């Protein structure tokens, strides 16, 4: 248990240090707000519209694919620890598991979810010709 206590102490130290230094600079620093200062930075031009607009759906796709593969990675840790006991049998099972995942990976790749930049338009052009 002592190990986890030390981690907690470390987290508390880190958070405390960050909090105190941010608060301290709030006390020590000047505070003269003006309309220009509190506007979002847009290279000196008056800000246009709200920043929280619609963003490319690609980022959501990446997040979803990440979730699937990250869980797979988490599955592999216990397997890596137990491999010597499982032997070639366990190895074959993970190869099968990987093959199933590979099908999904190929599907995602072919669908163009991993395409960025001009890859997508090139894929579409290739399909047309």
């Amino acid at each position, binding site marked *: 248990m002592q190990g986890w206590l*030390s981690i907690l102490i470390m987290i508390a130290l*880190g958070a405390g*240090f*960050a909090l105190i230094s*941010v608060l301290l600079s709030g006390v020590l620093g000047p505070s003269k707000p003006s309309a220009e200062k509190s506007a*979002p*930075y847009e290279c000196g031009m008056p800000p246009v519209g709200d*920043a*929280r607009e619609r963003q490319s759906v690609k980022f959501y796709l990446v997040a979803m694919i990440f979730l699937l593969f990250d869980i797979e990675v988490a599955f592999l840790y216990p397997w890596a620890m137990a491999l010597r006991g499982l032997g070639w049998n366990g190895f074959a099972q*993970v190869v099968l598991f990987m093959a199933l995942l590979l099908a999904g990976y190929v599907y995602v790749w072919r669908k163009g979810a991993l395409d960025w930049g001009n890859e997508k338009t090139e894929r579409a052009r290739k399909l047309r010709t």
Partner: protein
Amino acid sequence: MSPLLIAQIGLTLFVFVMLLSSAAVMVYVERKVAALLQQRLGPYLVGPKGLLQPLADVIKLMFKEELRPRAADALLFALAPIISATCAFAAFAVVPFGASTTFFGLLKIPLRLQVADVNVAILVIFAIASMSVYGIVLAGWSSNSKYSLLGGLRSSAQMISYELSYGLALAAVLLVSNSLSVTEIVNSQAGSWWHVIPRWSVFLQPVGFLIYMTAGIAETNRAPFDFPEAEQELVAGYHTEYSSMSFAMFFLAEYINMVTVSAVATDLFLGGWHGPFLPESLGWIWFLVKVGALLFFYVWMRWTLPRYRYDQLMRFGWKVLLPLSVVNLLVTAAGVLYFGL
């Protein structure tokens, strides 16, 4: 309170202070190495050879005005730098940096040079590394600035993409050394083959080491993968709107994360504190040398390589690095079973 507990708490405080100073030293080293590579002098006015420059920077930042955009989400805006800094400190807690010591006979039972000795250290590192995405995403979103939002989005996509390869490279090391505890992984690398080659995992896992370092550089948002703060495109990325000490917290977190990635790489691949010529009780010197070399490599890369393009980064992460790390893992597993390591 037992002396061991007091020593443990003292050690935790010591590591905390060392992490803080390592960030300060890295600020100085980065500027000096950059100057060296560009044939400039770098900082030289504050203190002897400019050594007090980081301290001067902190004092200056401390007395700067805290700015917050009008439409920003006040709570999350304040919270983001604190989350970043906390995660950076917490990740180092499970990294051992030397063999056990009794502090010259002061303690009855030898103390391990490591903040927390948990048996699932690798999982803790992996978990906290994933947590650090939150600080950046929240900073990007809460600022309500276009550059911040774009920087935060890019950064989160980049970090989660490379985290897969990072995790798979770690899993391959677990296979070779058969333990989740970093201390045991380091101890399994003691000695040498035929008295010439040290038994470091990097010789068993050369591809794994390359994958780990590539993913580690992408995870810490350093050049050539420094998209979250690509100055020429995004001003400063997710911390565009930050000033004063909140801004400093992001930099502190970045440098401490670099130290952690280098320290974990040293422990897992480069034999940790094992090295020739020194007794094991002085092994931390080897540890510092190896971490220092990796950190120098980090800085050297930044001032040598141009930045990738974002689509190149994502293509490389998903279409090259991820398949490569899966193949590396399977080949390692087959090798472990075939040679009975």
